[in-house]
């Protein structure tokens, strides 16, 4: 499902101008990472995609639905949203009910919702916690529960606001696998992240934001290589790109294998 954000602006009641004219088109099945400094407007932007916020100017169109003309509840059928803080979205008393809540809201029968919830909990390795109260889990586990809640809804577009926050290496790898499987399913995946190495490993397109505007939008290899530009929004290129630049390697490696290949090629040319 395609998504078009057309010159939107938004100011919070306290007077903070969070978006000052943002236009982005995302094709069906694209994987897009949004990076940028704290307060750049990243979360405000994605809250416009599921209609949680309505733009003061411009419009957001998801498929053929203008978010201004549809309720948040209706938008939820098209856009799944995982909040930065899991405690902003947990409502039920057991993990199983929590994950089945979204599918039920979409009108699925109880057995269908349960089946979807069970499959989603298996993806995040929390199937054994189905009867547990969400608040008896750790914060990183609660984040995985909210991720499962969104997976269970099978929306064409999924948005994750800082999915790897607080996760350890295993959790980060787990979320990476989920993103890869969503991509293989041709679902549109949009994340906000400060984890630039994670971003480099899984996302082909990167949007850098600063001060309520889009600073750069393009292929990861191009955007993440621009150290000077990224620095203006408090972001650094991935570790391997910084290393390649520091040793004069003419490449923008996003993976360890890519780095080693470029290194050996460059070295053999030297001889």
């Amino acid at each position, binding site marked *: 499902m395609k998504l078009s954000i057309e010159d939107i602006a938004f100011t*919070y009641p*306290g007077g*903070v101008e969070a978006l000052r004219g943002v236009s982005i088109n995302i094709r069906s099945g694209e994987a897009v990472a949004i990076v*940028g*400094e*704290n*307060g750049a407007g990243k*979360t405000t932007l994605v809250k416009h995609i599921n209609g949680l916020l309505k733009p003061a100017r411009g419009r957001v169109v998801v498929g053929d639905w203008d978010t201004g003309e549809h309720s948040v509840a209706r938008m939820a059928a098209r856009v799944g949203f995982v909040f*930065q*803080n899991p*405690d902003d979205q947990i409502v039920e008393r057991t993990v199983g009910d929590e994950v089945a809540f979204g599918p039920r809201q979409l009108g699925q029968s109880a057995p269908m919702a349960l089946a979807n919830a069970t499959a989603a909990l298996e993806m995040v390795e929390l199937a054994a916690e189905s009867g547990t109260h969400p608040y008896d889990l*750790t*914060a*990183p*586990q609660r984040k995985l529960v909210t991720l499962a809640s969104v997976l269970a809804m099978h929306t064409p577009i999924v948005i994750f606001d*800082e999915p790897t*926050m*607080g*996760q*350890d*290496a*295993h*959790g*980060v*790898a787990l979320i990476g696998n989920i993103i890869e499987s969503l991509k293989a399913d041709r679902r549109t995946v949009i994340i906000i992240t*400060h984890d*630039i*190495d994670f971003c480099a490993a899984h996302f082909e397109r990167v949007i850098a934001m600063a001060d309520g505007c889009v600073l750069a939008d393009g292929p990861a290899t191009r955007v993440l290589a621009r150290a000077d530009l990224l*620095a203006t*929004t*408090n*972001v*650094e290129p*991935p*570790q*391997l790109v*910084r*290393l390649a630049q*520091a*040793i004069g390697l003419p490449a923008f490696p996003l993976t*360890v*294998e890519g*780095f*080693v290949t470029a*290194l*050996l090629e460059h*070295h053999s040319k030297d001889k």
Partner: protein
Amino acid sequence: MISLSDVTYHYPRSDSPALSNLSLEIPAGQFCAVIGANGSGKSTLCSALAGFVPHFYRGKLTGSVEVAGIDTAGSSLAELAGTVGLVFANPFNQITGARFTVREEVAFGLENLGVPLAEMEPRIDEVLAFVRLTDLADQSPYALSGGQQQRLAIASVLVMRPKILVLDEPTSQLDPIGSKEVFAVLRDLAATDEATVVLAEQKLEWVATFADRVLGLHKGKLVADGPPAEVLSSLTLTKYGLEPTRYTQAARAAQAAGWRTDETTLPVTLEQAVEFFR
């Protein structure tokens, strides 16, 4: 200075210990990072240093925890507050909700410590500038973004200039350069103010670059203790659910593919990697 002697701790209703026979000393002026997978005991250790274990969480603590000469089990949280500052992982747990502006929120701890007004103002200005919240000083704490709230939580503890500073994943929501800056300032606080800094973290690149010492926890036990270059390049790291930095991974992969170098140790920082691949 911090001293733990044979510390074992069980949360209420838990059969397995969250901390198991921990003994260690951290001298004043040291910046010590604590690493480990989720559930390894990092947060529990932070809570124990600040006295939240056992005073707030209850449960059963054996052995002794001393911070700056104070036995934590024998003193109240209020008594400890002037000595130990704890920055929580989640800023929502730190922000008092009792103050209307960012500036007032930072002042809260100083008011409780009875710091005179004339001294408070410059200290607040300094710390707000450091966390880059000067322009938002008159906003409500709840109008800030997640990362800005985390900066505020750090500021409200730093402003009290505690002798012992304990931080539980304080940079999880910070932008990349913002995280690096927090690490740099913690190193400086330890080096110049003789503060003892203990930081639980997942961001191993900055641990490698800035910390003096790394403690590795696994299932409540101390499984590694040494300089970052030694602990973070160790092959056992993955066994404890941790991923080495891309620099270490690239060096190992390059060696396996036939790359030869005179360097005998694997790099854990950018600077070391540049040497390794030169």
